[in-house]
Every structure is written in C-alpha cells, then in structure tokens.
C-alpha cells in the first residue's frame, strides 16, 4: 500500500506548482502584456483571482467524495494544500481589490464592507477561512484534538455557500455562472449530508474524517 503511493510527493510538488500558474499568468500579463488583460485590467485580475479562490475551495471539498467514490485514498494528502491555496488566492483577491479599486484607503474599504452586501459577504467568507488556515498544521490538529478540529472545520459548510452568495450578489443580472458553482457546491456538501445519514444507519462507510 505504502509503495503504491510513492508517487504522491511528486504529485504534491506538481500540484503546488500548477496552482501558482493562474497567479503567474496574471503577474506576467500585468508586467509585460497588458493587452491580455483587456480594457479593464483590474476587473480581469480581481475576478480571475475570485474565480480561483472559489475553484480551490470546491477542489478542497471534492477530495472526500472523490476519495470515497474512487478508493484513491492518497487524494486526502492533497487536501490541505488545496485548502491553503483557496485561502491564499482569497487573500490575493482581496489585495487586488484593496489596491486597484480602493487605492489602499482603509476608511473607503470599511465603508464599502458596511455598505455593499456582496463585499460584506466576501469579507465574512475570508474572515471565516482564517481559523481554518491557521489550524491546518499537524501541530494544531494535535493541539485541538481531532474532534474539535473537525467541528471547527465544519465552518466550510458556511464558507462555501457564502462564497457563492458573494458571487451571486456581485452579478448585475445574469446569474448563470454563480448558479453553476452553486450547483457543484450543493452536490459536494449534499453528498456529505447524505453519506453521514446513511453512515448512521450503517449501510455505507462514513465519509473520511480527514
């Protein structure tokens, strides 16, 4: 079993590098090829970073269902990195907004958070992600104990829907895209709810804890 998973460190390294490609692409475009970013480069950058935040969040949530469905238990070893990338892209997404939209003005940002529901929601989402990122190390898991750690990380049931709501409320009129992300999220979270119910009845193995 161990031997058959010897590819995992290499895979982890690969995923680590690939996950930086979206950011690198934006940086290269900004520095050398502004035309790639179109007429409104700040919008392109903020949106692209927001998309990747949500995608990494969904990828993190997809690990458990995929693992159970495929029996590829090594997938679990990518989960922490995917989750941390979601947080990382969230922070860069926020930075893009802070710099390009708000010109680093703290009062304006606070006003915006108070005034614009979609910003309020985005901010809340990112704040809720902080404790999860902060408790991602093995040492923290040990310190908290598996039970409390798990309970804390159930926050993702709030974070996911809030992230989709943030996208939904941002859109002026056409909600197709947030609806698609919302559907995927509903499947990933719904799977867990169902699996737990069935698990309680003892027909299907309970979903992975971590």
């Amino acid at each position, binding site marked *: 079993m161990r031997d058959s998973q010897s590819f995992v460190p290499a895979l982890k390294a690969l995923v680590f590098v690939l996950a930086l490609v979206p950011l690198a692409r934006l940086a290269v475009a*900004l520095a050398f090829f*502004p035309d790639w970013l*179109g*007429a*409104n*480069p*700040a*919008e392109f950058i903020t949106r692209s970073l927001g998309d990747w935040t949500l995608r990494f969040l969904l990828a993190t949530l997809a690990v458990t269902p995929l693992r159970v469905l495929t029996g590829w238990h090594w997938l679990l070893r990518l989960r922490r990195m995917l989750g941390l990338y979601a947080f990382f892209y969230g922070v860069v997404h926020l930075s893009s907004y802070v*710099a*390009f*939209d*708000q*010109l680093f003005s703290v009062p*304006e940002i606070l*006003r*915006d958070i108070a*005034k*614009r*529901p*979609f910003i309020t929601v985005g901010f809340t989402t990112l704040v809720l992600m902080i404790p999860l990122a902060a408790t991602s190390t093995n040492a923290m898991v040990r310190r908290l104990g598996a039970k409390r750690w798990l309970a804390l990380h159930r926050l993702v049931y709030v974070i996911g829907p809030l992230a989709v709501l943030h996208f939904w*409320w941002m859109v*002026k*009129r*056409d909600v197709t895209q947030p609806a698609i992300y919302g559907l995927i999220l509903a499947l990933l979270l719904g799977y867990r709810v169902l699996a737990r119910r069935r698990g309680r009845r003892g027909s299907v193995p309970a979903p992975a804890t971590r």
Partner: protein
Amino acid sequence: MIIKRPHDIQPSEITPRGVYEGRRRFMKLAAAASVLGAGGVLEPARAQEKTLGLPKLGNVAKSRFSTAEPLTAYKHITRYNNYYEFGTDKDDPAEYAGRLKVRPWTLAVEGEVAKPRTFGIEELLKFPLEERIYRLRCVEAWSMVIPWIGFEFNRLAKLVEPTSKAKFVEFVTAVQPDTMPGVHLPVLDWPYVEGLRIDEAMHPLTILAVGLYGEVLPNQNGAPLRLVVPWKYGFKSGKSLARIRFVGEQPKTAWEKANSHEYGFYSNVNPNVDHPRWSQKRERRIPDLFARRETLMFNGYGEQVASLYAGMDLKKFF
C-alpha cells in the same frame, strides 16, 4: 453608399495579413499626410488608431461640445461593451454582434407627433454630421472618452413635430431573435426600452450617433444608429434603435423593470448618489489599473444640463 457588414468578409480572407496591414499603415500615413498638408488638424493619435476599417463617414464637422481629453483606444471601445442582447460578458458583443442585420434598417418615429414617419438608415445618414467627443460614464464605475459621430436628436424631432402632449420620449431598440442569442434568455424584458423627459431629449448634448472614430458604428456599439446622452449613465443610451415614441407618460425602462430600486428613470451621473451596491464617487478610466478618477456631477456636463433639474431632489429622482 455601400455599407459592408463588418464580419462578412475579412480582409484576411483575401490578402495575407502582413501585406494588408502594411498597406493599411501606408494608406493611413498617406491620409494623415494629405490632411496635414491641407492644413487639417487630424490628431496624431487618431491617425494611427487601428480600427475595424468600416466605411468612413465624410463631411463631419467639429463641435464645441467635444472634450479635449485623450481618446480611449478604439480596441477598448469596441471590445468592452454592455449589449446584453449578445450576452452579458463584456466581450460577447464583439464576438457575436457581427451577425446583427443592419441593412435594411428603418427607424419609426411616432406617438404624440403631427407627422409620424419612418426613416430609412440612408436618410438618417444624410443629416449633417458632427463629431462629438464625449465622456461616457458607465453605472459600473468605469469611463471612456469616445469620438462619436452623429447629429442632435432635436433635428430629427423637429421633422415629426411633437405635439404639446409629448412629455417624454421612449427609445425602443431592435430585437432580432435569429441574430441575438441574449434575447432568448429572460435577463431583461426585451425589447430594451429607454426613455428621456422631452427637455432632456431635445437638449443639444443628446445625439443620435451613427459613427465612431470616423467610421460607421461597429455593431457591438449599437449600429446602425444609437442614442448618446453623455450626462447619464451609459445604459440610458439605447443601441440599435428601431422605434422612437413621443409619449405623455413616463416610459417604463428595461432596467427599471428589472430593478427599480437600483436603476432609476433619470440615472444622471451623480457622485453623491451611490448605487445601492457600490459607490459612484470615483471611476476607472479605461484601461487604467487604478480607479482613481473623481466622478463629476452630470459627468462634467453640469454647466449645460444642471438647469434641467433645478429644484429637483436628485436623491429621490435618481
């Protein structure tokens, strides 16, 4: 005049790219040289601007209403559009509007008028044309500087003789289900309808635009004929107009029907009245990275239009 649909035949289908590009550069230089030689005042920026090469509009007068601010690049004006009939992404119109059928085209002008009439686009292109370099401020907090070509709406109005019952003007834009993928989705209540108070419509700043950067309008910018009201948010300026009605009651506009809480009938550019979901204090001049420009009351046209709203509470009538 023969007007070619922009995407019918690309020059690239006939001539190798390098060759036609070189040829175009030469022709533009030659044109610039001849204009300059004749004592003209063609701005260098415009002479070098790479356009779609649509039919040029001749005999275009300058206007005292034009701003001297640097023009937004043609590529940005024509590739960053809100034209929901072709999709809600900014690049959808550039992608799909090529299919729009702009010939034949008629504009019906009717309602509370003594002489209702339908104009063919050829007749409309015969109005004395002016270049109007206007700021455009989108409700989404970005802005551009656009060299429109067109004529004042009041010239058209005079021909149909509005009656004393005409208090508002309704602008109805085209719906072509076979060329417009967006109208099959319930994003807005089609056709897209906009409206102005009659005094706003008759104001000399309100124009019907038929051209951009010296050429006929690209489809994605509202060919063959669109409204431009520079002191209001961009969505007030309906594209590809099919019908204009002079009416007694304030028209129900498409965005009001969609969300009257966020989009008012007046929709004057106003830094002091925020959109419920974002601030309107500042704007991003395309293609700037930073949104650092202060938004001006009436988009900087207050001197001309503020009197239209004397005594009105613009927070209430937003």
